[in-house]
């Protein structure tokens, strides 16, 4: 991760239909590690992640980021008729940084070594979600945003995926949005409760 990668939120606000979802939020994440955003459904976790990724504009305040941002969306958003391996591979481009691993290696690390050639359409929800985690990591981001990444994954495979994400967090900023409950991560640098 470059020394300069960071996320700075200053008095960040967002409302939908006149209802404040996020109001006056301030934080700075500038060191590698795991950062957790916790909250009930509809509390604004996804909105916050989307604002960090630049996909949704805030109504007030500002959000500033530096570094490549990868996203694991709540739904896997894979290319249906493309193999799981190809889904991971195709995010690499000439601007990619040092890859975190090989696509085959990443998929094997989350228990998908035997399913590389399966298309997304032929794969279960859990397999698709694990693939989307690998894709986002293979993108070689400095900041990785994960929106409830384990929601469709069984416990055993969630542990494998969490181990991979933990490895990423040693060098990158990892933000996990979760609705609470049992977390597969032992430590977090900061927790934002919405």
């Amino acid at each position, binding site marked *: 991760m470059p020394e300069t990668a960071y996320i700075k939120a200053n008095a960040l606000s967002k409302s939908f239909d006149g209802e404040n979802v996020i109001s006056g939020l301030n934080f700075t994440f500038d060191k590698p590690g795991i950062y957790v955003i916790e909250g009930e459904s509809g509390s604004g976790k996804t909105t916050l992640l989307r604002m960090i990724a630049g996909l949704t504009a805030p109504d007030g305040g500002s959000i500033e980021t530096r570094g490549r941002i990868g996203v694991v969306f709540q739904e896997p958003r894979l290319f249906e*008729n*493309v193999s799981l391996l190809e889904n991971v591979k195709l995010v690499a481009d000439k601007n990619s940084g040092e890859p975190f691993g090989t696509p085959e290696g990443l998929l094997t690390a989350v228990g998908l070594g035997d399913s590389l050639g399966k298309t997304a359409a032929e794969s279960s929800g859990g397999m698709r979600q694990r693939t989307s985690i690998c894709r986002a990591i293979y993108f070689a981001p400095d900041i990785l945003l994960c929106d409830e990444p384990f929601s469709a994954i069984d416990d055993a495979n969630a542990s494998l995926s969490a181990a991979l994400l933990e490895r990423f967090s040693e060098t990158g900023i990892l933000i996990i949005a979760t609705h609470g409950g049992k977390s597969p991560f032992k430590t977090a640098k900061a927790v934002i409760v919405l």
Partner: protein
Amino acid sequence: MTPMKNKKRIGIVWTLIGAAFLVLLWVIVSAVVGNRWIFPSPIETLQALGRLSTTSGFYLAILGSLLSIVAGFLAGNFVGFVIGVASGLSERAYSFVKPGMSLIKATPVASFIILVLIWLGRAVTPAVTAFLIVLPVVWQNVITGIRSADKKLLETAQVFKLSGLKKLRYIYLPAASDGYVAAVRTTMGFAWKAGVAAEVLSGTSRTLGGMIYKTKLNIETPELFAYTVVVVAISIAAEFGATAIMKAAAKKQKRALRGPKEGAANA
């Protein structure tokens, strides 16, 4: 038998009953008219077909029509698809092309045939007519497909900074192909019929339309019916053929997108 297979079987049976009903109607009307030069019976038509099938001109006519109309059909598909993709991706390209396509769609086929005949001559009139019939339909369907591309996938492509080429290959082309397949099915029959009409009006030789025109001049109604049966049969076969080719192409594309099969590797 599964409910789906049973439903399909019932559909086929009723289609056959419908076709048999039409033949029966043909028999009845021809019997009522009672004049083979005005309305020949199915038997008289088959006899005429039998006579024609012993001549080389019959096969040359089929070949001549197929070559020119299929050439126009394929050209219309290619140009319609390329312009459709460009118009689907760019509002400027769409606005630029739209007046031309509207003009083509609104102009009666007969006017086109006559104009092309005057401007370009009889040899290319059937091909150009088929081209003009296919072009706007393929163009419109491809645009509709591209515009219905999955917005979430496009957002994902934005996040992962996928190149325009990758977006085209993985998002837009699969979206466009759905509309394109529908267009091929729709236009195959139209192109064939309009192409034969162009052959009739332009009086081309060694084509089905040319032969139909000749039978009209000689008042050979059973032969006219026989050629019409051939045109209908080829139209139906072409539609089935186009559907089968499109299905095979879609399967091949799916296999290509799946990427090379590779074994497990180390983490």
